């Protein structure tokens, strides 16, 4: 096969590309330029997206004896990922830009371009596996539980699964990959993992958003609508946040309060006790099936749901109802915010995903009194 190896400059994609070469594929390395201001060499490496990372990817390609190119997706990235990120925060939601990048850039724009230029598949260094059952491809969790990245791949569609390769997806731990990189003489063997959001290099999301969004003061209220404080902009808050609320009156129970909900339309931030963060039901209109869709998704079925990249999966009943994919969890779950992606698993298989736009708390407001 003619394989395009997407190379971030990190160790995972380097070893993935090396294994694709070993497997006898005709491999070309491609680094995605995603930022117009990718910084200079002096700003160092982040694990992806800087010039140093691009040069690391180039060096690995040379050692593997494959050709290497940098493709500029910065315009698409800005529109589809960065602007989307800002708009989601403006709308009071908490987006996952890595997910959006997989959905719109790596396995969409890049894959489309690769297929148009004569490639058969795109290979990446993600930890997840593909299994074929009855002629249908399924996406499964990696056996490397700690590194499993099936969550961020939950957006892949049936058609996309046909054109992706995850050569290191079944590896049981990262140390093995680093050792393999070292054995192959790849200088990226000990390179630290990427972290944070690539377009916010200093990790200060709130500060970065503050530069993009205007101050729009509003009220901080409790679940019964009583004002307890004020704020300078809803983008400063995420659901589950405890610090920086500046509430002077203590709650009746004397316990700290947390952000429960953000309502940009009225510029209101709703706070309440930690217990009220517990969610029992979530749903979203924007969903995709990963691989073959269930035959009758309207009939409730038992599954697991995961709401963040490294969150524990939670048992649930899932169903398609009125055009919305939704789950009712068997146990209340914490750390759920609209804008996040919920990925539905059946066993180790990724069945589908939705962007959360509705949550129902497990605790009623009356209990705040």
């Amino acid at each position, binding site marked *: 096969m003619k394989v395009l190896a997407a190379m971030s400059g990190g160790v995972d994609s380097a070893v993935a590309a090396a294994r694709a070469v070993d497997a006898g594929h005709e491999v*070309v390395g491609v680094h995605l*330029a995603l930022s117009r201001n*990718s910084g200079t060499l002096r700003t160092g490496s982040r694990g992806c997206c800087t*010039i140093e990372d*691009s*040069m690391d990817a*180039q060096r690995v390609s040379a050692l593997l004896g494959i*050709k*290497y*190119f*940098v*493709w*500029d*997706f*910065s*315009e*698409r990235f800005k529109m589809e990922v960065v602007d989307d990120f800002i708009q989601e925060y403006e709308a009071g939601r908490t987006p996952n830009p890595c997910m959006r990048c997989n959905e719109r850039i790596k396995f969409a*724009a*890049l894959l*489309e*371009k690769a297929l*148009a*230029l*004569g490639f058969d598949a795109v290979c990446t260094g993600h930890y997840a596996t593909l299994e074929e059952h009855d002629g249908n491809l399924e996406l499964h969790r990696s056996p490397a539980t700690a590194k499993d990245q099936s969550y961020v791949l939950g957006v892949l569609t049936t058609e996309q699964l046909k054109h992706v390769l995850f050569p290191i997806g079944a590896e049981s731990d990262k140390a093995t990959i680093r050792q393999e990189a070292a054995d192959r003489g790849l200088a990226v063997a000990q390179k630290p993992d990427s972290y944070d959001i690539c377009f916010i290099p200093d990790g200060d999301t709130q500060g970065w958003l503050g530069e993009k969004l205007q101050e729009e003061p509003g009220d901080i209220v409790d679940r019964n609508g009583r004002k307890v404080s004020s704020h300078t902009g809803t983008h400063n808050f995420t659901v589950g946040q405890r610090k920086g609320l500046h509430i002077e009156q203590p709650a009746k129970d004397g316990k700290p309060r947390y952000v429960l909900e953000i309502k940009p339309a009225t510029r209101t931030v709703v706070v309440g006790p930690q217990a009220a963060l517990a969610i029992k039901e979530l749903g979203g209109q924007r969903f995709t099936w990963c691989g073959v869709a269930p035959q009758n998704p309207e009939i409730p079925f038992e599954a697991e749901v995961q709401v963040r990249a490294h969150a524990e999966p939670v048992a649930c009943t899932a169903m398609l109802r009125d055009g919305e994919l939704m789950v009712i969890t068997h146990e209340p779950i914490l750390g759920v915010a609209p804008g996040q992606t919920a990925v539905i698993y059946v066993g180790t298989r990724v069945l589908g995903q939705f962007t959360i736009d509705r949550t129902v708390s497990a605790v009623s407001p009356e209990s705040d009194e």
Partner: protein
Amino acid sequence: MTIYLDHAATTAIYPAVAARLVEDMQKLGNPSSIHSLGQSARGMLESAREDLAGVLGCDRNEVIFTSGGTEADNLAIKGLYWKATNVDPQRNIIVSAYTEHHAVIDPIEWLEKFQGARVHWLGVDERGVLDLAELANFLAENSSQVALVSLMWVNNETGVLNDIERVVQIASSYQVPVHTDAVAAFGHTKVVFLPGLTAMSLSAHKVGGPVGVGALIVSRAAKMISVQQGGGQERDLRGGTMNAPGARAFASAAVLSAAKVHDEAASRQVLLDYLVEEVSKAIPSARFSRGSAPGIPDLAHFTFPGCSGDSMLYLFDQQNVCVSTGSACTAGVARASHVLLAMGRSEEEATGTLRISLGRDTTRSEIDEFLATLPAVHAAALKAGLTA
């Protein structure tokens, strides 16, 4: 076999120059040493200076050897700017154009950001031709505040030949110093150190010399401040041990390439006209970027609507054809060309570019092989679209 049509990025060193360079590099002696081996090295360096001066029609003392074109541009721009503002702090405007090479734009923007320079960017028309009436008008109004004018002789992306003689004429009448980056001109059109010109940048590897050598030709009358201190080996304008073998190789390549420019201009123009005509025939939507503007006969720059340059580059490379989207830039990212944007093209148009640059030995059959691959490459790139 690989078809190399990216000679504007770098071109092959003359074999005789390379052989002599290898020999010279094994000779012991620092040109600044007083003993006999030092004097031999000095002899090598000064003979190179004389030969290069001979090609350029300048005084031997006006040749300052540098590490390349970029260093020469930095020395000229910063050196002239600092001298001018040192004498008169009000004289802090730099006049240039946004079609310049980054080796000129970046030092100017650095002076603007860190040293209080003001910049007047001249406009160009849709072919990339400088608006010299604007230059004349601007200097008529502001000449007492202008530290220098820096305008390139030939554009490295489009091959447009600027009327540097006229630029010098205009600026001289206001006693404003003129620097020209002649890196893309040298070896492709007749380049001499024009009377009235203050400084001119050159690079060896674009004319069949080695990488890592260049020169700034600085008029004896020029007033400048050095950028790199440390011994002042080159007329007190540049410190550092001099690269005598490199300078020797540069001068030899310059002599050879200047003769070539003179003898083969007509035949090279025929080759370029053929290339431009055949590309237009094969891909009617392709646009020859400089249009009717005067240009050098070794470079053709095109835009291909609906294609992205990086797709075309990849596809040509698969066919063993090496071309470029414009100037080679940081980390190999094919960005929208700042030159085309300055020419008023849209971001989309400035993304679908291809530069084909011919070398001294480029043959018609190589052009034909390029042309044979073009239709399929164009079709696939069009299908891949403007994903950038």
